[in-house]
């Protein structure tokens, strides 16, 4: 397993007028091995940008990102990404989508089949392997996308609002399933979301970003409470009724509310 280190990350985009727009300013953050860190922040605070740099899809203008002690320069199969819009290959079946990463690695057919079957089972998707993405509901599509990322057994998982496009009910189900999956196969995870409750429910720590420019505002530790109260064994609605949960959620919410502006 590998950790993720953001060291003094700055990111500026050139603007049309020839100037610069600072999207992120001096962000230092470490996601430990097997830790689940959620990032929340107002729109435009640079959450996606942060994740893309860890993935190697974007490059910081200052500072550096290291995964497992190695500086990130390009995408690599040690880091898997789940996008908000799923980004499944529309011309491939569920099976082919999930097996894609393994094929890239040259894994034998038997191994591919075994992994596909395993994740279909874990994701409660048995029997859909020959369907095309457009024949699946949004929730199912996102399960395939998550399975596709898990299938390459990455050291690091990067998720950018993976449940953002789902309806509220499906979202709750997916949150529970993600908790199940991460407890069974813990991986270093950077999870980006707009939803405060989701962040608190899923993660070990919640990172709150501020914007203009995107900066680190505060890191809220959830793990001690989660372990002490045994959240992982409880249903999601039961957890959300706990006073400790409400307290943490309100805390994060206040950190965000202070900076939300009418134009958001």
């Amino acid at each position, binding site marked *: 397993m590998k950790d993720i280190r953001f060291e003094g990350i700055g990111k500026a985009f050139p603007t049309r007028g020839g100037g610069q727009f600072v999207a992120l300013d001096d962000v230092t953050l470490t996601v430990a091995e097997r830790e689940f860190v959620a990032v929340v922040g107002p729109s435009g605070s640079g959450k996606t940008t942060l994740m893309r740099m860890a993935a190697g899809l974007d490059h910081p203008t200052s500072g550096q990102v290291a995964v497992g002690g190695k500086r990130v320069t390009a*995408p690599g199969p040690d880091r898997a990404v789940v996008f908000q819009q799923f980004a499944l290959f*529309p011309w491939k079946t569920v099976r082919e989508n999930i097996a*894609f990463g393994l094929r890239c690695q040259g894994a034998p057919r038997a191994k591919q089949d075994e992994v596909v079957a395993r994740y279909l089972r874990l994701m409660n998707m048995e029997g859909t392997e020959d369907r095309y993405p457009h024949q699946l509901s949004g929730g199912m599509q996102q399960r395939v996308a998550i399975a596709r990322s898990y299938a390459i057994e990455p050291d690091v998982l990067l998720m950018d609002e993976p449940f953002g496009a789902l309806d509220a009910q499906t979202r709750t189900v997916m949150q529970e399933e993600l908790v199940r999956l991460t407890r069974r196969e813990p991986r270093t995870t950077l999870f980006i979301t707009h939803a405060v409750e989701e962040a608190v429910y899923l993660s070990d720590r919640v990172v709150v970003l501020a914007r203009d420019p995107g900066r680190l505002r505060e890191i809220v530790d959830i793990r001690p409470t989660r372990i002490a109260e045994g959240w992982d064994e409880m249903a999601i609605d039961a957890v959300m009724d706990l006073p400790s949960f409400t307290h943490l959620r309100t805390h994060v919410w206040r950190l965000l509310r202070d900076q939300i502006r009418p134009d958001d």
Partner: protein
Amino acid sequence: MAQLSPLERWVLTLLGTIGFFAIWQGVAASGLVSHNALPTPAEVLATAWQLSFEPFAGHTLLQHLAASLGRFAMGFGLAALVGVPLGLAMGRWRLLDDIVSPIFEMLRFVAPLAWVPFAALWFGTGIGGPVMVIFAGALPPCLINAYRGAKLVEPRIVEAAQVLGASGPRIMAEVLLPGSLPSIVAGLRVSAGLAWQSLIGAELIVASAGIGYVMVQAQSNLAPSIVMAGMLAVGVIGLALDVALRRTETLVKARWGQA
């Protein structure tokens, strides 16, 4: 812009078709133009039928057509094999785009038929020369449509493949190609039309067999009915090619389009 009833439309279409042949027949039979210049529709059909059995310019019409189609298939296939991958790669890699685009833009303004002399000098007048001219005519739509298609592939999907560890060639074959297939097939259709027309052009100028050669021989023999029989054959084959590719396009759109 009032709508026509189906009956009215049908009647007018029929009138138009009859009118076309009637005018042709009328002009040809009236003696307004010399009969040597404009044969009647029936004579053209009869000539086409006759040419199917009796050799003209060395071969029967069908043999000439076979020679033409062979060259067409080679030139068009070559254009697709070069144009599609190059277009996809240019759509994906900016640097390649920046390098190739100005050269391509420069060459594109040279009419394909202007390549005939070099094609003949380099590859002879048998198969190679005409094939090169067809290639020059057919390449641009293949390349441009693959390029546009690749640009329109959802960037997230390309990134997803990248992140899952796909190599450049794999991204081209498994992501960009299927992702831009509708656009590519549309380009191939345009390309086939241009290939067919460039082929005729090339055969008019340099060739010793083929439908274009038939027409230019007939021209120097002052035999307009053979010229027009050749035009008929060219039109029928061109139409058949277009219909076939249009079908393919519809199929591809239905199958991949909704993605």
